[in-house]
């Protein structure tokens, strides 16, 4: 059985560092896939049903069910904050400033 984790699809080392820091701070497991897939596809691969990926200049958080589009997104430069929101989503905490 897969361990519960949110899936980040990226091979960008700095992006991974920032998103992983957000997940470490929230104590939520993150799994990295060095593949070029959409956030939705990453979410489908996530046992928690939450995935992250970069789409153009944006980092996108998607859910595996209920919606085809982005549940959350923001500029790649805000990867730490978007990562924090995704981790909090998994931990069922208020998402903070990137919830809007």
């Amino acid at each position, binding site marked *: 059985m897969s361990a519960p984790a949110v899936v980040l699809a990226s091979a960008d080392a700095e992006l991974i560092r920032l998103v992983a*820091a957000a997940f*470490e*701070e929230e104590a939520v497991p993150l799994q990295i896939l060095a593949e070029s897939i959409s956030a939705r596809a990453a979410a489908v691969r996530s046992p928690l049903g939450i995935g992250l990926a970069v789409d153009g200049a944006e980092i996108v958080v998607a859910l595996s069910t209920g*919606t085809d589009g982005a*549940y959350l997104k923001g500029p790649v430069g805000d990867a730490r904050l978007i990562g924090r929101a995704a981790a909090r989503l998994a931990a069922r905490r208020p998402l903070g400033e990137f*919830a809007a």
Partner: protein
Amino acid sequence: MLVAGVDVGNATTEVALARLVAGQPPEHLSVTRGPTTGAKGTAESAQGVLDLVKRASRRLGEAPTRILLADLHPVETGLRELAADSEEDLGGVGIARPVSATPSGVGAAAGQLIDLAGLVGDPLPEPVIPIVGLIDFDAAATALNLARTNGWQIVAIIVAGDDGVLIGNRVDATLPIVDEVADTDELPRGAWAAVEVAPLGATVVQLADPLRLAVLLSLDPTRARGARNAARALLGHRAGIAVRREASGGATEQEQPRLATLADGSTRAIDISTRPPGVGDVVAIEDIDADLIDAFWAPLPEAIDDAALSLRLRQRRAVGLAVLARRSDRALEQALAGSFAGEVVVVAAETAAAVAGASTTPGAGHAPIVIDMGGGTVDLHVQLENREVAIATAGAGLLVDRICGAILGIDPLRAEQAKRHPSVHVETPFILRHEDGSRTFLTSPAAPQSVAHLCITERQDGSLDALESDLAPEVWARLRRAAKRAIIAGNLRRAITAAGGLPRGELAVLVGGCAEDAEIVSEVSLALADLDLAIARGDVLGQHGPRAAVAVGLVLLHAETL
């Protein structure tokens, strides 16, 4: 003759259009409702009346020739918090309560506050608590580890950003580290401070105990007693910071409560520990220049079964105050007379009009007891064979809004919605938890800003209104009902006492905006259970529910004079 019965309430204005022919019952044509513009009874409130009359006339294709008004008394409603933290007497101890959900480590420690950049050279002989500003967590951890290697005794860490766990994992996961601390720049470097992080699910113990706090901060026994407020202020929080203030060491000035002067010449402080006297007993209130009919005040409700929340609410010393005053002018009547083409007639007191309107409730016959629960007042009208009494008490729906707004930290307009509609907690994008603990599943995800928040339901567009409050829905529901009970049912009790009691077994009809709120109706019914009354919700003209009793009643009373 087409007439408009107009009820200008503190929150809502209602217009009842009717055609009157002498010797015949009125032909009731419409009831229109809108928000009151300006304060009740002022010239500004005329605009709302004229707009509603215009709207109703347009629908009917005919304008009224007479506006019928009640004799009005306005209510002022407000809320004062006497003890914001900065004003509180903390006995020479500064406090901070970080809001972060993810502090690091567990335990309490005390040391000298020092900037991260100050951890250079020979270490200080005493323990230190470094303050980490908004810098990268890896850089901060490197600097902290180097300082520890050089002999600095780091016993706790205060972090400005959301990096507590990250730094703890790289330095020492057992150290108490509080993060997301606002205004770290204001923490006095060099001062002695204590930091505590409680285990998950627990709250601070050491900082919430005045003697332990005093020991941690090296306060002498005299000042230890003075630190009790600081200790109480930290009670119920997962993490906290306390700083010894060296300069003043004394109490800050507390805001004093207003004084109410009673009819017997005595005074009573308007505070959370005092209760308002009987109806009409307050004759003057400090800083309020008005000819008072009644005054009522209420604190924030107590959170039953949650001592920490109760204490947090109590520490704010928030008091909602409603004041009912006699009008010294006829501003509304004059403003209407200057703008309305027809006549403006003051028909009767609101009380008499409410009884007449409530009596149109099917099955009521003549309603001998009418309880009009509006925005500003709870009015009791008793019309029995041997006595006729009308009591108006200050404080009703708007005061409930103020109290609910203070609990939730929202403005009174938003609180009005929160008061009326059930709340939910959005557990996940697809699961809502309701006030009774039941859960529902959503087929499309809730908006991200609502996740893990208490939300008000029933927005017109179907979306949820996310609140910042961390209250659970069941806790908020209890507080909301308690506020309704204290204000509406409490005021009604005062009115009944002032009226000399009510006959058992008699019919009491509830009207007014608050009577649309099922929770208020049930709270009133429970509060009056000992009186054995038949309490029923009004249905004015059999079609308007408990609304428009005064507006329709004015039409009925005026018809009797033709």
